[in-house]
Every structure is written in C-alpha cells, then in structure tokens.
C-alpha cells in the first residue's frame, strides 16, 4: 500500500527547547540569516516554535507551538504555482521542485501557515559550517522558494533500502530530523496508512486538532492538546 506521511505534534509535551529547529537547519542545509537579515524578517526556519503568552502577571503562561509545513492534502500553495514547482507527490507530500521554481512567491502568499521561505540572496555559511553540509540535500540558490520536505531524503533512502532488501518499511525505522532530535518526544513522524504506526494511533487521539483546520486545507500534521491551560492548578 502507498505511504501517506504524517506527523503528530504533542503540544502537551513540547518544552520549546528548539532542538528541532537546530536539527532541521543542520539536516536540510538551511543557512542562518544573521542578525541584520533576521531583523528584516528574512530568517528561514522550516520548523519554528511559536510562543504565545496567556494571562497577566503574576500568572502568565507561555505556550509553545511548533509549526512546520502541514503537508496539506488540499494545499493552497499548489494550484497557484504557474510552473508546477509546488507539486503534490503520489505519497501526499507538498514538494517544492527547486529547479522548476521561477520565484513568483505566490505559493508563500497563499500558504496560511507562512511556512514557505524565499531565498532573497544566495546562501552563505560562516566557516567552517560549509563543511557540514548534508550531501543528500540540494543547496538552494537565490530567487527560489523552499520549505519543509518531511526530510524527503530520509524517506527516499529508507524506501530504497527496504526495496533492496525486499521488505516492507517498518514503523520507526527512520524519522525526520526534527522528530529524531526532540528530547521530549513531542514530534512523532510516520506512515498514516499503516494503521499500526504510532503516528496513525496518535492522530486519531481525541486530543487531536488540525492547525487552522477550518480553512479546509486537510493537513497531515495533527496537534495534540489536552485543552485549555488551567492557571490555578499550575500556578
């Protein structure tokens, strides 16, 4: 059966440590923008940890919300691309084909989650960081869009390996860089079509919601959350 890749983000487990962000940068050859450019809104993080504050002093609460590409089934970014650079793969990924992209940035505007990033300049790494580039991932040039791929290089490598060994992929055999590095196991990646997988089991949890699900984008990322914060019990 075809795979359908999905993720679960357990907001009750996320500590906001941002290890996922660092791991993603390292895995996917994402350059750091630097202080000046970041201040101008040019920072690129395929996954980011959003922070929202609730309540006032003396009982403020901070809530963390990791946001990455939701790999929507009905992705608003896909139909708007005039050159098919944002393309829906048979495995349900919203892929970005870098060498087809001419940089209209329409996909980024259409994306309600703001998880698509534009290369305003050619990428540069402070020495010696250029030596740690991942050879399995393209370095993106100026003028094109990029986004979370669900570590498609890892998916492909695992699929090829399984095929070579003439066996089915096992749940947990591989995972994305962000999920791998999450110390509190707040991110769980896997095949939603495999009903025994952890991600399929957690996705149907009654704690589950979709981010901006009301827009009808049908995300393949599910957020788990117990409910609203109870300040009294935590205070």
């Amino acid at each position, binding site marked *: 059966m075809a795979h359908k890749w999905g993720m679960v983000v357990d907001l009750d487990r996320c500590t906001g440590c941002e290890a996922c962000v660092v791991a993603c940068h390292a895995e996917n050859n994402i350059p750091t923008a630097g202080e000046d*450019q970041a201040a*101008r*809104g*040019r*920072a*690129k993080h395929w996954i*980011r940890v*959003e*922070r*929202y504050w609730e309540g006032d002093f003396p009982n403020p609460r901070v809530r963390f*919300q990791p*946001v990455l590409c939701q790999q929507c089934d009905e992705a*608003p970014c896909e*139909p*708007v*691309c*005039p*050159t*098919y650079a944002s393309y829906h793969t048979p495995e349900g990924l919203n892929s970005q084909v870098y060498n*087809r*992209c*001419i*940089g*209209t*940035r*329409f996909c*980024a*505007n*259409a994306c*309600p*989650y*703001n998880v698509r*990033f*534009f*290369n*305003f*300049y*050619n990428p540069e790494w402070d020495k010696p960081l250029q030596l740690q580039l991942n050879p399995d991932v393209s370095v993106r040039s*100026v*003028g*094109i*869009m990029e986004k979370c791929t669900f570590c498609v290089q890892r998916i492909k490598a695992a699929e090829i390996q399984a095929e070579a060994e003439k066996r089915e992929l096992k749940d947990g055999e591989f995972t994305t860089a962000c999920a791998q590095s999450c110390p509190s196991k707040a991110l769980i990646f896997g095949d939603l079509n495999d009903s025994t997988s952890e991600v399929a089991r957690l996705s149907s949890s009654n704690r589950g919601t979709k981010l*901006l699900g009301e*827009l009808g*984008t049908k995300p393949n990322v599910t957020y788990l959350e117990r409910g609203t914060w109870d300040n009294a019990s935590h205070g």
Partner: protein
Amino acid sequence: MPATAEQIEQDLLRPLFQSSGKYWIAVAIATSLLLAGVAAFGYQLYSGIGVWGLNSPVFWAFDITNFVFWIGISHAGTLISAILRLTNATWRRPVTRCAEAITVFSVLIGAIIPLCHIGRPWLAYWMIPYPSERHIWPNFRSPLAWDFFAISTYLTGSTTFLYLPTIPDFAAVRDVSTGLRKKIYRVLALGWQGTPRQWQRLEVAMHIMAVVIVPVAVSVHTIVSWDFAMTPVPMWHSSIFGPYFVAGAIFSGIAALILAMALLRKFLHLEQYLRPIHFENLGKLLLTMSLLWFYFTFAERLTAWYGNSPPEMAVFWESIRKNFAPLFWTMVVCNFIIPVPILAIKRLRTITGTAIASACVVVGMWLERFLIVVPALEHKFLPYSWGTYRPTWVEDTLMASSFGMMALLYLLFSKFVPMISIWEMKVGLQSHGGVPVVVPAESRPVLEGPQ
C-alpha cells in the same frame, strides 16, 4: 474649434516636425528616471532580490502594487475609447488617441513589472506553453498563468486598437514628409490611399476591435484581482474583487486620461481641440466612478465587519485604525472626499478642477492597491508569523522609473504620431455638411442630449 481641414492638419502635425526646448528637457528627465530603474534592476539581479524590502511574510508589496496600478491605468484607453466609439459619442474625437496610447504603454509597463519581480527573471519564459525538453506546460490552474494569457492578449488587442485608427494619419504624415521619414511612414501606413473600400474596411475593423476589446479589458482586471481572490488570505478571498478591481481600474484610467489631456493641451497648445467640454464630460464619468468606487469599498468593508471573522478583522482594523490608518484615510480623501465635490459642482468642474481631482484619484488608487496587498500579507492567520514591510530605495527607484518609462513613451509617441486623430477631427467637420463650423455644436455632450 479649428475652422478648416487645413487648419486641423497643420495644428496636429506641428508637434511631429517641431519641438521646443521644454520637450527635450522632459525627455531627458524621463530617460534618466528610466535609466535609474534599469540600474536598480541590474543591482537587484547582481545582489539578489533581498535588496528589496520584502520579507517573510510580505512576499509582494511595491512590485505587485505597481503592477495592479499600471494595469488599472490601462483601462483608460480601451474602455473609455471603445465605449465612446460604440455609443457614437461625437465629443470623443479628440480624446480617443491619447486614451488608447495610455493603454498600450501602461499595459506594457504592467507586463514588465512581474518579469522584474520574480526571483529568477531569466526563466520568465517558462510561463509560455511551448514544447520543451522539460515536458512541462504551465499550470493552467494558476491565476498567474491566466494573467500571462490575459495580459498578452490585452497588449496585442490594445496595440491593434490603437494602430487601426492611426493608419490614415500615418498616411497623412507620409504625404507631407520627405526622405527617411517618408519611407518609415509609408511602411506604417500600410499602403493607405483613402479609397472608399479602404475606409469601409477600416470602419469594420475598428468596430470589431471596439466590441472585442471591452470584454478583454474587463477580463484582464478581473484576472488580476483573482491573483488575490483565489487564495485563502484574509480580506483577499472575496467574490467582490473582480468587479471592484474593474471599477477601480476604469476610475484610475479616466483620472490618468484627464491628467494626460491637461498636460497635452498645455504643452502641445491644443487648446482649440481639447476644450473644457471634454474635461467636463470626462469629469462626469470620473464622478460616476468615484461614487461606484465608494460603494464597492463600503460594501467590501461592511460585509467583512459583519462577518467578524478574527483573521479578517485583524487585517480590517490594521488598515482602518492601526498602522495603515493614515494611508487608508488618505485614500478615502483622495478617491472620494476631494473629487466628489469638485466633480459634482458645475462651477468647479473646470480643466483645473478635473485635473486636481484626477491627480488625487491617481494617488488614491495607488494607495488602494497598496492597502490591498500589504496589510493582508502582514497579518495572515498565525499572529506569531506576522511581519512588517518597508520599501527600500531600490523599490522606490523602480517605481519612479515606471513613471519615467510612461512619460518617455508618451513623449516619444507625441513626436511620431499625431496625439489627436486628424482624420476623425476632419470627419467631425464633414458631419456638418462640409460647412466649416465655428460654433462647436457637434461636440456638445451626447450625454446631455441636444440643447
């Protein structure tokens, strides 16, 4: 009102053969603005589009504002000229050529801007469906692909629409010139001899083009609006956008036409041709469009407010109360509060009055497009990813250069083509039994009926 055909020919051909020092100064200023833009674009190509003020999440700003602005201005020629031709409004005769020229040049500018704004301009030809080694056609689901076809159709159509009624005038220039100029105009005149058969065919062709260009113009600005309306972005995803954009485009187009006519009248000494009646009639059209614009804006805002959806209200309040409030209310003043009294009171509906109102409308409509593009992108859904936008000098220069390009093309056009259709003015004389008319009875506004 010129008395004779000879007088008309002499007056209207004069700018082609004589130019003042002021003309060359204007050409120099326009050229330097255009060159500054070319230099800024070169710098942007060399450094990366990061030299613009765009960021995440504001991926479109001045670029698309100017694109929509110029495509909007282009509705001056087609709609005004085609509708006036189709309704046989005789006062149109001195107006159509300057309107149609505005159309061609502003569509051209509008078409160039997206080519400069994309991340890899050297690959822009991938928008064209051609059998390539990549085996990929454009994505016909994308409003940008619709844009490509709509704008290229419009550019072709409006160029034809401008060219057809110019053929007899090219022949007129051919007949009075010598040397290289004669050779060039002989080609442009396409062998025009003025035989009855040629006149009849020209009339038919012009009529067909006038009918065809109206739906093309309406579809172009509708499709431009769909660049926004087809996305789930708050305050963009609205069914009112198509007609709202078309009305706004005609509004800004008439304003640009009045401004251009006021300048032509002054600098080419066309006082006898572009007379107060023309400004008054166009002023009335501008007044109608101003009221229509207000109605659309009001309807759009009121439905958003009653809908009260939180993401839309974030954008809504941002534009009318918070950061963008000064721009928003300037827009309302420029598009409605200033022009309506000027244009509604007969005593104020003079050449100066309509020109002032038009200048306000051009500014106001630019602001309208900016206020559609930027506040929505800044405030899309997840508040953590909200951003702010400030243009850089590169974007300012490119914008100034688009105005420079318009001015340059228009100035050069006035040097090579009579800005007022000579033969149509002569037809105006003939329509009164060939008797030289001193009292401008024929150019009484058709809208008011005979007086």
